[in-house]
């Protein structure tokens, strides 16, 4: 991968901005390079304010959608950086670097894909769905959210919803729902693809162990660089990996963001 010509022009014009609900915004920008190369599960790194030294660092976002030369990210406002990015208006510029990280390992042999989504963890799922569909997997999507209006269905398949407030679908966590469905033997050869808050990821990891099924988790850690030069974004490797390789940590930005659940500690 050689970025040298294109990645030096990270300035990307925002072409669309859609508010899903208060504090949850889809921002679309023009970046032919990222649009062409990005694969499901990779992310882009966005500077909250072009040219500013405060905020100093970029913010990572999964590639949510792309079409033609346009790339979209779905931004949940959680602090000052996301607030600035979510407020960017069409015509304004964003400074975007990417695509970064490794794609979902969607080419594994299992015939069924269970997508487990918590909140804005939906971000990498439309592209994943696309890949899984094109390779003929059976997809089941379990989407947990605080309430119905926070659900972004676009690009997903076979969605089962679980909401904390019971405003739609199953009243409870999506992991509890999958547990039920797994125990009912609704799947014969599944793999879990998981992205959401840490608590949900831990539950999914436990579920995978309980039913002995492969499970891939897409992680979020603070990142200073996103490209493997700061060592700031480690996740703890599992004991077996550590014993074998001496590697206590793995970098989420370059080795991840997704890891097999048995390769890491959470």
């Amino acid at each position, binding site marked *: *991968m050689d970025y040298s010509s294109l990645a030096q022009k990270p300035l990307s014009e925002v072409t669309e901005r859609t508010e899903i609900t208060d504090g949850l915004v889809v921002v679309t920008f023009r970046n032919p390079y990222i649009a062409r190369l990005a694969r499901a599960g990779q992310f882009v790194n966005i500077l909250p304010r072009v040219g500013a030294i405060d905020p*100093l660092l*970029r913010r990572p976002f999964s590639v949510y959608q792309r079409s033609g030369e346009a790339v979209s990210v779905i931004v949940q406002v959680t602090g000052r950086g996301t607030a600035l990015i979510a407020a960017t208006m069409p015509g304004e510029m964003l400074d975007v670097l990417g695509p970064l990280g490794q794609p979902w390992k969607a080419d594994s042999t299992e015939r069924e894909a269970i997508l487990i989504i918590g909140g804005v963890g939906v971000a990498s799922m439309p592209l994943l769905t696309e890949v899984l569909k094109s390779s003929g997997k059976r997809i089941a999507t379990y989407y947990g959210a605080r309430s119905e209006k926070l659900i972004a269905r676009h690009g997903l398949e076979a969605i089962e919803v679980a909401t904390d407030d019971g405003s739609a679908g199953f009243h409870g966590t999506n992991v509890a729902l999958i547990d039920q469905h797994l125990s009912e033997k609704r799947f014969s050869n599944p793999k879990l693809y998981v992205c959401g808050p840490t608590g949900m990821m831990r539950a999914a990891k436990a579920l995978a162990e309980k039913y002995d099924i492969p499970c891939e988790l897409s992680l979020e850690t*603070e990142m200073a660089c996103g*490209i493997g030069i*700061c060592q700031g974004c*480690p996740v703890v490797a599992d004991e077996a990996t550590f014993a074998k390789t001496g590697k206590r*940590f793995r970098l989420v930005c370059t080795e991840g963001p997704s890891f097999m659940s048995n390769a890491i500690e959470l």
Partner: protein
Amino acid sequence: MAEFSTNGKAVDMSVLLKHTMFKNPVLVASGTFGYGAEAKNYCDINKLGGIVTKSVSWKPRVGNYPHRIVETASGMLNSIGLANVGVHVFVGEKLPYLAEFDTQIIANIAASSVEEYRDVLEHIEANATKNLAGYEINISCPNVKDGGLSFGTSVERTAELTRALRSATDRLLIMKLTPNVTSVAPFAETVEEAGADAISLINTVVGMAVDHKTRMPRLSTVTGGLSGPAIKPIALAKVYEARKACGLPIIGIGGIVNGLDAAEFLIVGATMVQVGTANFANPHAGIDVVEELERYVHAEKIGSVRELVGSLKVDATLRAQGW
């Protein structure tokens, strides 16, 4: 190199540190550029004055537990904990890889005893590659218990270490000083007497951040090292203090994000600079600094970047004050 010219003559960006020529005075700082493999996708490394590699110790170090970084106002705290591949992988893989680039390499070393520092240096020396220009000795890492800061805050131990390493190499020996001392002057003097070729400063400033939601420290080590534009004024003051205290060339570090920042360090008295944290948001930062500095030198109508070094007009200022 010579994009601009003054009176028909090219702008000369080269600097000489003792016997070693650098194509320009801009290095990338230890721990902020990896070993070149990732960053080469974002910038033409051959345009840099050189690369200071991540601190290397005798054995590999896994580094600190997460969380290792947190953003602060115009800066960041880190507590990486000197995660590194160890000197054997360093000489076996990293140095040969870096030898492919047309730029100077400075190997940064961190250790917990004079012996370990010396062993690491000798092992690198024995496996030196053609563009290995020398060593930067990190006696100033605030984030690990044995990261050299016990050296960096003691004039005596700094002297002892400098002497021990001086006798082990003829390449550049650069001592990297900490800002976390009452006065940097005695360290600058000591290091000069003990035979170092240059000093570099500053390493990060001790700092801390707290999460008011969880009431937990935001770094696993509670305190960490502050870097980025926030610390530039501190770094400039330390360079100025060191400049007055010793005659050694100085490599200025701290908060440099553009060519004008770099120019400020040279004006205050640094011969070279390093770009650190800026690489994280902009992996092209080193090159941007070189190019803007070159434009500045051109605009100043001076033939060489070296004419900036120590050109601070300070006398009139101080006289007006009656100091």
